[in-house]
């Protein structure tokens, strides 16, 4: 079995994995990182989205061996010192989650969206989140939350 070396939410792991093991199953079933859920088996829903070396990926579409040598951040590693990340906070403020199942992936995808466009329009947000499905909110408040999160994050950068 191949041995991989991977950092997840700041902790370094060495794991022997079957070549077919999905990254999301490594996270959930080997490392106990159950904050990242699985919503489908065709990489349509985006619930399992995590950051792989700073870019969002659907962790059901990545093999664990492909994460060898990489830095993975999940929803559990997002906040710092017990505080919510501004995007998590924005989702709370705008009531952008109901059942919460899509939320981890939605938050990760939203943060990644801002990497390319720190001040996205409603249209850009809607297009940018196309790969993440939510069945509860009709997306209205998610779009508002991403706008708010973008403003907060812009603020955070500007005020040292």
């Amino acid at each position: 079995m191949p041995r991989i070396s991977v950092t997840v939410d700041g902790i370094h792991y060495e794991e022997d994995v079957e070549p077919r093991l999905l990254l999301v199953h490594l996270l959930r079933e080997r490392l106990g990182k159950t904050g990242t859920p699985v919503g489908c088996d065709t990489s349509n829903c985006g619930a399992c989205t995590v950051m792989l070396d700073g870019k969002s990926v659907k962790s059901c579409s990545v093999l664990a061996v492909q994460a060898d040598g990489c830095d993975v951040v999940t929803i559990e590693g997002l906040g710092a010192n017990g505080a919510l990340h501004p995007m998590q906070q924005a989702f709370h403020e705008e009531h952008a989650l109901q059942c919460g199942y899509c939320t981890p992936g939605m938050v990760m995808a939203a943060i990644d969206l801002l990497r390319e466009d720190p001040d996205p329009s409603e249209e850009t947000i809607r297009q940018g989140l196309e790969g993440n499905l939510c069945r509860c909110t009709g997306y209205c408040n998610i779009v508002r939350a991403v706008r708010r999160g973008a403003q907060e994050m812009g603020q955070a950068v500007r005020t040292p």
Partner: protein
Amino acid sequence: MTTQEVGRPRKRKEDARLLTGRTQWTDNLSRPGTLHVMFLRSPMAHARITRVDVSGARGLPGVVAAFSGQDFEAEQGSLPCAWPRSGDTVVPDHPPMAVSQVRYVGEAVACVVATDRYRAADALEAIEVDYEQLPAVLDMNEALGDSAAKVHETGNQAFTFRETSGDLEAAFRDAPVVIDRTFVQQRLIPSAMEPRAVLCDTDGDSFTMWTSTQIPHILRTMLALVTGVAEHKLRVVAPDVGGGFGSKLQVTAEEVLCLLLARKLGRPVKWTESRSEGNLTVHHGRDQIQHLRLAADADGRIRGLQVELLADMGAYLVLLTPAVPLLGAQMFNAIYKMDAYEFACTGVFTTKMPTDAYRGAGRPEATFGIERMMDELAAELRMDPLEVRRRNWIKHEEFPYTTISGLTYDSGNYEAATDRATALFGYDKLRAEQNDRRDRGDPVQLGIGVSTYTEMCGLGPSRWFGENNAGAGGWEHGSVRVLPTGKVEVVTGSSPHGQGHVTAWSQIVADALGVPFEDVTVLHGDTAISPKGLDTYGSRSLTIGGIAVLKACDKVTDKARKLAAHVLECSPDDLEFEAGAFTVRGTGSQKTIQELALAAFAAHDLPDGVEARLDSDVTFDPENFSFPHGTHLCAVEVDTETGMVKIRSYVAVDDVGKVVNPLIVDGQLHGGIAQGIAQALFEEAVYDADGNLLTATMADYLLPSAADLPDFALDRTESPATSNPLGVKGVGEAGTIASTPAVVNAIVDALRPRGVADVRMPCTPERVWRALEGVRR
């Protein structure tokens, strides 16, 4: 003076763990030594099973056991149908694992239990099953014909049902206008984001099941009845549940089989479905052919309405299958007055996944039918669709109003909601633009869709359920206990899965007891913690469960008053209770309810007959349903060259009575409207001619993303319910019920001058284009 909590847009208490991944989805849970279950499923829609050989799976690496249906035959019972409303309903035997015959693609025929899910998946490949194929039965009209194959020995008719009020023949005789239409309510896949999962453990004597369900209490009783495991030896837990929309209002084959496997093996077993498995085997929704006839006077007044439904049951009757279309019996007449009404429905067996409740359950179908008919009537009379509705709806001064189908609507104001909606929408301006585009022959036409809906929710009065053959009633349980330190623990029999009960119930309790919102916690979803309940569906949680909690608070304050009078040495009648404190009238001396809780706990000085606890326990049974209503207006741009439909604006003015938390109410409406739009434009479960589900993955079944939907403009009017002390009405399904006809009416409105009178849902670009082509030819 404390601020009133009810009515405040409180941010949700539920969010923190959901936002940080500290969640308890069933698939996140494990017990030491947990084994993983996978099911082998029928690739045939209809076949006799001639041989199942699981021996190839046994002995493979990591495999603990493999079983076929025969291995469960003696103990698996039959999956229950709890509401055969019509007296002639045929409830076929429904083994959780097929033994001798399969009746839909996806039905479980064997299973493997292994040390992990990869091993289990490998071992499924080694099971051999021989089938003798039988003809698939897919079309409802054909299924009822003489030459159709029989899904069950009794034939393909599950039930017939007919209710008539008034003189229908007289209503249609010499009617100046008769509208006759047939609409199709396509089959939908509910698609809650969390796939189902079950974990079942045993200590050899009793069982605990964690499962992604809306109904832990009902499930516990039903599992006991089906399997013979004693109810008091069975605990059911609904941990975090990722959406339901009716799809988790079910007693599933997998839950029964996991319980039996835990019993057989004496070890914890877990099953988590893949999405593709879920599309095949989570019950589907809708699926009706509606034949509607409406008779009216020349001025648009409705004389009579006749409804003839064919409702696809699928292969079996699961928990509420035959009852769902029959909720339409009370709903097709909607907000309108008429002289005569007939509702008839035939339930039909086919070789497809069973149907059951999906957001709205019977009411979206009915609302779609009548609201489409109102637009057809308006078109026939060349009248504005709002005007034809105004001429027929119940006027606000006529409430309470007993409808032709026998329900009594307690309150409402259709005029106010419609006036507000038209103003917000800019109705007249959009009509002007529509005319302009028509005159110009613009390839992109504008359509305006109207939906003035009501619905019956808050299911429901136990007496009504009893009169209509349901297996259970509709009460709910709540209990409240003030802890020694003054914090408050609330237990609710409702079982949330995204709605925000913890936040809303905290607001209700904070007001009722005069304690801080933060001092209230709400427990739910575990039969060991919440021993009684009828769970969450039918927009019932607030109007029944919330009221049970409110009444439990009232009981607590009654108890506290006795204790306060004793401590303050006065008569209970001399005490005023306000903002959490009892004050002796005309004096400054007072005790807060939180102080009294400590006094009750210490019990050093209790009056005779007062127990050492400040708690209470209530079941509440509503006297009536709740009837939210509203006016939804949708403007669409339809590209007549490509068939593409774009929603340009969507306005919803809803009246859900008093609002406990406006953030939550708006969120429910947003999501509900999106699901209704999804039925109108995107979603359909499609079976091929052999009964294979072609939309078995999320890649094939089109759920809308953020890019497919617009923002919605919401507003509210407020006609408090008179049937409960908070004046609240349900909101969970209202958006879905209202929005589907608003969208389709808008599309038809755009194309009507070009001769199009209907577009079948989902109104995909291809369907719209073909509708136009059909007319062009």
